[in-house]
């Protein structure tokens, strides 16, 4: 690698410069009015109250489907918005700076290229974090109110049918699992981690791509690959095509190291079903998220450091 990436000691710290660029990218995106989508989310979160699917369970589970629907629609919308935001915003920022020549004015200051890249990425991640936090508050509020209503309905039904106290207590506990919980917050965090991975991957693609459209399309393709690559790998290895060969195993391992593997993130579906998210899974997801984000950022730097403008 050439001297171009050599980081010496310009005035101001790396962290402060990264933070300045991150805040600037955040402001830039906010002023593009990206938060308008929150109104759409609010409509979806409230409308999901009325998506009461026909139920086949007993009367004791009355209303639980609605709680599941609220979580499912909310987390689905959060995934969609966070993914679109992280990919499109990242794909947009770099080419726009090059096209407008603002990149020249920034790199002509004592700003190492790594600081510029890390700042842009952090700005997008900050935007995704704030967006998800706002959506989370809205979802939790809607879910809290609806859970209280469901609990009241169930209590009235149980009392009308003269249920014993311990059975009522058990039903309340079971219903409460479908309400706001730490596992649900864990699921939102998983959505955030997945979006952060995709933002850093888009950053890498945009360092060598020539257009925003190319970066966006490739990023979405990799996102879908990330969801089925674990299954494809298992099927490939178990089918005996490469299971015996060392090369096949190494190749599949390399693929999972380079392309994101979202298998662990399937836990979000379990949380929607009211299951508790184990701490171990949460820790594993965090480590996987960090690994991919750091790996893609370093790879982006490697490409960007050699780039000429």
């Amino acid at each position, binding site marked *: 690698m050439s001297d171009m990436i050599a980081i010496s000691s310009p005035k*101001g710290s790396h962290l402060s410069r990264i933070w300045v660029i991150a805040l600037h990218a955040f402001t830039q995106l906010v002023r*593009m009015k990206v938060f308008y989508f929150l109104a759409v989310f609010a409509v979806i979160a409230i409308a999901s109250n009325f998506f009461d699917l026909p139920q086949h369970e007993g009367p004791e589970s009355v209303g639980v489907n609605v709680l599941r629907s609220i979580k499912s629609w909310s987390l689905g919308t959060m995934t969609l918005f966070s993914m679109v935001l992280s990919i499109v915003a990242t794909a947009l920022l770099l080419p726009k700076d090059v096209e407008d020549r*603002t990149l020249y004015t920034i*790199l*002509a200051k004592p700003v*190492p290229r790594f600081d510029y890249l890390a700042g842009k990425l952090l700005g997008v991640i900050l935007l995704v974090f704030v967006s998800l936090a706002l959506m989370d508050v809205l979802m939790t509020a809607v879910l809290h109110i609806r859970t209280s209503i469901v609990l009241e309905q169930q209590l009235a039904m149980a009392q009308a049918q003269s249920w014993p106290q311990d059975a009522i207590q058990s039903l309340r506990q079971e219903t409460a699992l479908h309400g706001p919980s730490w596992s649900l917050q864990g699921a939102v965090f998983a959505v955030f981690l997945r979006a952060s991975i995709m933002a850093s991957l888009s950053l890498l693609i945009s360092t060598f791509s020539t257009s925003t459209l190319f970066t966006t399309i490739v990023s979405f393709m990799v996102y879908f690959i990330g969801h089925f690559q674990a299954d494809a790998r298992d099927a490939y290895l178990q089918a005996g095509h490469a299971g015996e060969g060392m090369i096949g195993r190494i190749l599949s391992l390399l693929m999972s190291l380079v392309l994101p593997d979202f298998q662990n993130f399937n836990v979000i579906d379990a949380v929607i079903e009211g299951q508790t998210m184990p701490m171990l899974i949460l820790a594993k997801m965090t480590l996987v998220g960090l690994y991919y984000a750091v790996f893609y950022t370093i790879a982006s730097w490697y490409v960007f450091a050699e780039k000429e*403008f």
Partner: protein
Amino acid sequence: MNQTTPAVEIKNLVKDFKTSFRNQTLRAVDDVSIRIMPGEVYGLIGPNGSGKSTTMKALLGLVVPTSGQCAIFGMDSLKVDSRNDVGFLPENPYFYKHLSGAETLRFYGKLCGLKGKVLEARVSELLALVDLEGARDRRLGGYSKGMLQRIGLAQALVQEPRLVILDEPTAGVDPVGSRQIRDLILKLKERGITVFLCSHLLEQVQEVCDQVGIVFRGKMVKEGRLDDLIAIEDQTEIVLKDASPELIAQITALVANSAGTTLLHTGKPRTTLERLFLRETTPTDPS
């Protein structure tokens, strides 16, 4: 830093680009050497595509030389440190339209490590210098071309650099805006700031530059002190005010009687079209 250390030292710079057509090599800069001493204003002139912008980009580390070296105040320009002492205004910059003038300067100032009261004072000082105090809170999306160039010049100066690199600073700007930018360059010169200017507006270069280099097809074809380059050694100019026709006749007769001297031309000096434009379009004080 020693005053004898050149502000800019480009030695035998060569820059080749690969073209997309058959991967052929295009030589954009061919063995160019430039030396600019502190406090000088240097104008690099040449037709479009002659390698002026590439030379400046190499000096800023935006492109890596194929061969040769570039240094700013003795520091290798590929090192980030060298950018502590340089401000750059690229050709036709857009900047961030969502920021106001003051926010733009704050952003660039923070990138250079300025903060707090020092930064605020610097922002106000620069807005006053480029005459944009009235537009400090207006977003850049509403700025005219001339205002954008001036805010661009202000961001280039934010960390008080000793060297300012200006790539076509008056491109697309009307004569009044162009004049303002030229006056700003002269102010920088008065402050002892080194200016490396690239333009194809020759009259402007002539007015502000001490040294000039002419590049053509990537090569430096002429370089030196402006006065030396444009002086016509065997001619002398005398400009008189309120001279009577009799005096002119006497001078003409005197020259005719002098052996070896030829009178080439007499007449009234002409103003430039630019001066005429400025005189007619600058509002006059009614009082």
